[in-house]
């Protein structure tokens, strides 16, 4: 994601504050959205993003420069999310707020007149609401692939699963997503 990423990371290792800031600016949005999409809570997403960057800076000496930094930071985030789910197992995140009012990321289209635009927006809403209803594992796969725009190779490294298995799981996730969409139309 960053042009001179290696150099920035080396400066971060030396404790260069400016380099650390550059790294945070470059990765805060994808990491924040990763947590937000998985947990659907802006406050928790913000907290977990902060924790991840603290982890990054205190464990940077363990980072292997032959791997992509994005893979490493997402692997840290994935493990952190798993820990978070484990700690909060009593709360069911798969049933976390689905009411129509809880979608701050979609613009309010009430004032728009074009019917097709409305339908399109409605469909977008339905798709992302359906993503929320996916089981945690499938939801995370869809988020890594589409929200974070990662390649299959990267996701396979982050989650430590073979490519074939990953492709199959992503397909199953999409299939389930379509099933949820159809179910919600009934």
């Amino acid at each position, binding site marked *: 994601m960053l042009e001179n990423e290696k150099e920035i990371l080396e400066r971060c290792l030396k404790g260069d504050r400016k380099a650390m800031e550059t790294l945070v600016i470059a990765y805060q949005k994808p990491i924040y959205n990763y947590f937000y999409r998985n947990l659907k809570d802006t406050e928790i997403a913000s907290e977990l993003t902060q924790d991840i960057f*603290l982890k990054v800076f205190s464990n940077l000496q363990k980072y292997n420069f032959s791997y992509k930094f994005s893979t490493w930071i997402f692997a840290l985030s994935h493990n952190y999310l798993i820990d978070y789910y484990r700690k909060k197992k009593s709360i069911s995140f798969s049933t976390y707020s689905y009411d129509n009012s809880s979608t701050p990321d979609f613009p309010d289209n009430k004032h728009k007149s074009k019917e097709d635009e409305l339908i399109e927006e409605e*469909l977008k809403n339905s*798709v992302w609401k359906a993503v929320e209803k996916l089981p945690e594992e499938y939801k995370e796969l869809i988020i890594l692939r589409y929200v974070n725009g990662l390649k299959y190779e990267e996701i396979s490294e982050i989650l430590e699963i073979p490519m074939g298995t990953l492709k199959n799981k992503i397909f199953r996730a999409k299939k389930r997503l*379509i099933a949820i969409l159809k179910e919600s139309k009934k």
Partner: protein
Amino acid sequence: MKEKHLNEEEISLFLENDIDEKRANEIKEHLKYCEECKAKMLEIKKVEEILSEPPLLEPPPSLLNTIMEKVARKRIKLEELFISIFIGFLGLFATLFYLIYTKGTNFVINMLIKKINITFFIKNGISNFGELLSVMKKLFYIIINLPTKNITPNLLYLRIAEIIILTIVLIGISLWKKDVVLKKRKR
């Protein structure tokens, strides 16, 4: 003869260009005449399109500053810990110096000469509560009035205990007072 319907996984891979060219062409041909598969393809394609344009949230504007503040605080904490340990060790050396060059000189030299006694003491240690009480009594006596005569192996143990206690107290005080010690270093 018509080819059997395409399966959804194949359609999905076809849409992602993740299928070999020969099969991709076959699928294209099939989609030309099979309305059912075409409808299935369009459905998956639509979902793919929506997923590919995710509505991304902007992180809170304060996030960067919060992270940087936490990072700085964590680094200061580490420095504080090292400084506290350093102060503790300074305390340890100061105590040793005090013991060696003031009232404990003869005692330390005697103990170095009589190494066997030290080994004997380590092997036996304190065996019962009564002995522990008497050791504590002696320790208290030593703290208030350090003796230089009649040095016994047990006294070495007491001296070491005294030094450890003093070191722990010093580390404790420095940790407790770390905010005062490092106040100027905090931004």
